[in-house]
C-alpha cells in the first residue's frame, strides 16, 4: 500500500510560483516530499508520487525521446487521463523540449465516430508527430492519426533506450504546451501557451488569487485536458510545491461525494469546480455521511469555468453546513484558456457577493445600454419589479487588466454591459498555427476579446453571458456548428437547414435548442426525423436538446450568407417560431419563458 504524500516539506522553503519555466519549478519541488496522489473510483489511494519521483521519471523519459531522435519543438498528443503517466509525459516533454498537446477523453455512448473525428482534427491542426494514450484507447488514436511517426502506450515509450539521450528543456521565452479548450471539432483552435504565460498565470493565482500558504493541499477531479484542471490543479500547485489529491473525472461524475470525502480525509484546503459540480453534490446530498465528513479545513472552494450561479452554491452550503463547510470559502473567479486560465478572483474569505439588478430593464436594453438600475431590496419603490442577481467575479490579478468595451471598442463605464477584454502577461501569443483566428479575437489596440459579456463595478467584474455562440451543458462545451453539421448529414436534411443555440430558462438552467427546416409533410415522418435528430445530437455531444421543426425559409442569415444564430434565437425567444407538429412536441408546457439572453 502506498502512503499519500505530505502536505508540507520538512526543510524546503515555500516558494509560490517564483519560477521562469516549468522545469525550474519541478527541479525545485523535487527537493521536497510533497507530490501527487491518485485515488480509485471509491476513494482508495492507488498511487502516490513525490515531485522528486515525477521529475526523475520525466527526465528519464525525456532522454528516451531525444535518444529516439525526436526533434526539438515537436508536438506530442497526450490523452489526458488523470494518471501518473500523464504527468510524467507532460513534464517529460518539458525536459526534452517537446510541446505536449493534451487531448480529451469522451464519455458519450455511441460517440465513436465523433470522438475519432475530434482527435483527428486536433492532432492534425497541432501537426503532432507523436501520440500517447492508454492501451484501451490506442485504437482511437490509430484510427484518427495512423500515419504518425510514433503512436503507443506509455509503456511502449518507457521501453525505449535512454542512454546518451540529452536534456534540452525550454527556456523562459519559449513554448510550453498547446491547450485545446476552445474551438469546434471542425475548426479546432489550440491556445499556444508560453512558459512566460503559464508562470505568470500561476504567480497570479498562487500569490494573489488563492494566497497560497505552506500546508495548503489541493484536491481535484477536473479533467487535465481543460485549463482549470491543467493550470489550476496541476501546474500551479506544482510550481508552488503543493500536494494534489486526484480523483478521475469519471469517478466524480459517478460518485460526487468521493470528492468531498477525499477533501475531508486528507485535509484538502483548496478545490475548484464549475457550478454544476456543486449542484451534483447538493442533489445527491450527504447520503448519511454527515458524521464522517469534515469540510472545516476547506478554505478555498473556487468556482469557475462557467457562469457562477449563487442559488446552487447556497444550496450546497446549506446541505453541507453540517460538515463544517463555510460559505465564506466560496471564491468566484473568471478566466479563459486564451489567458492561460485565470483573469479575476473575488476576495478571499468573503464568500459569494452578488449584484442585484432590475430584471426588466436588463432584458429590454441592448448590449451597452445603461444597466443595471439598482433594485431596492427592501421594496421601497415599486415592489413588483423583478430582480436578478449576478455574481461578482472580482478584480483582475496584478499586472493584468480587464475592461468592458462597446461594439465600437470604446471603454464603457460601470454598470454598462459590453464585451469583456483582457490584457496582461498571461494572455496567449495566439492560437497555434492560426493567425486568422488569433486576429479575430484581438482588438485593434491589442487586447484579447474574450467573447464574454459583462460589466464593471468599482474595478470588479460581473459576467452576464457569452457573446460567442458556445453552448455549455453540464460542464461540457458544445460548439453549435458541430451539432448543426452532424444533423445536416442526416437523410431528409439539407445543408443550412439547421440552427443550434442555447437559452437560459427561468430556473437558470441552460437548454440547447436545435431548429430544423423540415420538408416532410407526413406527421409521423416528421416525428421520426425529430427522433433521429435528437439521437444524432446525443451521439455527437452527449446532451439532450429540444428539436423544433419549422417550415423552409424560416432560418435567418446574415448579408454575407452566414447563419445568424442570434437572429434565430431571438425569433425563438419571442415565440415567433412554432413547431410544424405542435401537438407532438413534448415539452411545450415548459417553453419558452426565458430570463436572458440578448446576443
Amino acid at each position, binding site marked *: 500500500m502506498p502512503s499519500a504524500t505530505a502536505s508540507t516539506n520538512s526543510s524546503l522553503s515555500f516558494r509560490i510560483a517564483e519560477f521562469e519555466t516549468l522545469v525550474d519549478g519541478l527541479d525545485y519541488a523535487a527537493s521536497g516530499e510533497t507530490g501527487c496522489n491518485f485515488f480509485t*473510483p471509491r476513494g482508495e489511494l492507488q498511487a502516490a508520487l513525490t515531485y522528486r519521483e515525477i521529475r526523475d521519471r520525466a527526465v528519464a523519459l525525456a532522454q528516451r525521446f531525444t535518444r529516439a531522435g525526436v526533434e526539438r519543438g515537436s508536438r506530442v498528443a497526450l490523452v489526458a487521463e488523470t494518471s501518473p503517466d500523464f504527468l510524467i509525459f507532460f513534464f517529460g516533454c518539458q525536459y526534452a523540449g517537446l510541446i505536449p498537446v493534451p487531448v480529451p*477523453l469522451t464519455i458519450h*455512448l455511441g460517440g465513436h465516430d465523433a470522438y475519432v473525428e475530434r482527435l483527428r482534427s486536433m492532432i492534425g491542426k497541432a501537426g503532432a508527430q507523436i501520440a500517447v494514450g492508454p492501451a484501451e484507447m490506442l485504437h482511437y488514436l490509430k484510427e484518427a492519426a495512423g500515419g504518425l511517426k510514433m503512436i503507443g502506450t506509455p509503456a511502449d515509450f518507457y521501453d525505449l533506450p535512454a542512454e546518451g539521450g540529452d536534456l534540452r528543456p525550454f527556456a523562459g521565452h519559449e513554448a510550453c504546451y498547446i491547450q485545446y479548450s476552445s474551438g469546434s471539432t471542425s475548426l479546432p483552435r489550440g491556445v499556444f501557451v508560453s512558459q512566460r504565460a503559464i508562470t505568470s498565470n500561476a504567480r497570479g493565482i498562487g500569490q494573489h488569487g488563492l494566497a497560497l500558504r505552506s500546508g495548503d493541499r489541493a484536491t481535484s477531479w477536473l479533467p487535465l485536458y481543460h485549463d482549470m484542471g491543467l493550470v489550476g490543479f496541476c501546474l500551479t500547485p506544482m510550481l508552488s510545491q503543493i500536494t494534489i489529491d486526484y480523483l478521475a473525472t469519471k469517478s466524480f*461524475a459517478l460518485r460526487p461525494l468521493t470528492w468531498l470525502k477525499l477533501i475531508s480525509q486528507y485535509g484538502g484546503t483548496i478545490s475548484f469546480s464549475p457550478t454544476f459540480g456543486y449542484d451534483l453534490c447538493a442533489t445527491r446530498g450527504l447520503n448519511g455521511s454527515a458524521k464522517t465528513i469534515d469540510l472545516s479545513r476547506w478554505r478555498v472552494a473556487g468556482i469557475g469555468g462557467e457562469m457562477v450561479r449563487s442559488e446552487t452554491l447556497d444550496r450546497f452550503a446549506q446541505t453541507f453546513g453540517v460538515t463544517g463547510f463555510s460559505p465564506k470559502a466560496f471564491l468566484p473567479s473568471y478566466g479563459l484558456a486564451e489567458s492561460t486560465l485565470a483573469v479575476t478572483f473575488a476576495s478571499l474569505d468573503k464568500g459569494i457577493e452578488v449584484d442585484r439588478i432590475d430584471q426588466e430593464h436588463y432584458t429590454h436594453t441592448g448590449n451597452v445600454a445603461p444597466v443595471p438600475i439598482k433594485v431596492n431590496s427592501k421594496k421601497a419603490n415599486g415592489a413588483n419589479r423583478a430582480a436578478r442577481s449576478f455574481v461578482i467575479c472580482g478584480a483582475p490579478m496584478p499586472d493584468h487588466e480587464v475592461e468592458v468595451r462597446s461594439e465600437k471598442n470604446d471603454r464603457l463605464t460601470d454598470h454598462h454591459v459590453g464585451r469583456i477584454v483582457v490584457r496582461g502577461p498571461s494572455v496567449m501569443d495566439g492560437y497555434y498555427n492560426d493567425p486568422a483566428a488569433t486576429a479575430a479575437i484581438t482588438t485593434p489596440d491589442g487586447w484579447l476579446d474574450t467573447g464574454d459579456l459583462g460589466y464593471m463595478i468599482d474595478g470588479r467584474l460581473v459576467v452576464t453571458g457569452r457573446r460567442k455562440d458556445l453552448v455549455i451543458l453540464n460542464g461540457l462545451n458544445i460548439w453549435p456548428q458541430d451539432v448543426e453539421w452532424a444533423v445536416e448529414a442526416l437523410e431528409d436534411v439539407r445543408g443550412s437547414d439547421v440552427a443550434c443555440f442555447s437559452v437560459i430558462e427561468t430556473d437558470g438552467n441552460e437548454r440547447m435548442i436545435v431548429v430544423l427546416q423540415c420538408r416532410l409533410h407526413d406527421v409521423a415522418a416528421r416525428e421520426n426525423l425529430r427522433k433521429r435528430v435528437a439521437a444524432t445530437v446525443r451521439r455527437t455531444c452527449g446532451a439532450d436538446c429540444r428539436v423544433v421543426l419549422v417550415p423552409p425559409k424560416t432560418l435567418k442569415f446574415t448579408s454575407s450568407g452566414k447563419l445568424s444564430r442570434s437572429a434565430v434565437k431571438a425569433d425563438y425567444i419571442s415565440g415567433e417560431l412554432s413547431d410544424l407538429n405542435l401537438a407532438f412536441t413534448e415539452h411545450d408546457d415548459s417553453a419558452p419563458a426565458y430570463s436572458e439572453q440578448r446576443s
Partner: protein
Amino acid sequence: MQWTADKVQEEVVKLLRPFNPKGIEITSDTDLSADLFMDSVAAMNLVMEIEDRFEIDIPISLLPDVNSLQDLVDVVLAQLSKG
C-alpha cells in the same frame, strides 16, 4: 457468482428500467441513445448502477463503442472476465 450472458442481460435490462419511463420494449438491438434518449448524465448514472451491481469498473474509453444493449452486455461480460 458465475454470470452467464443471459443473466447479465437480464440484470442490465432491470437496471435500465429507470431510464425507460415510457416502457418501450428492450431488446438486444435497442439503441441506448436513439431509443432510450440517454444523454451523458444518464449514461453516467447507468454506468454507476452497473458497476455497483456487478462489482466491476467500466473504463469510460469503452463507452463510445456502446450503441446497443448488446454492446453494453458485452462490455459487462468482458470486464467480469477480467475478475
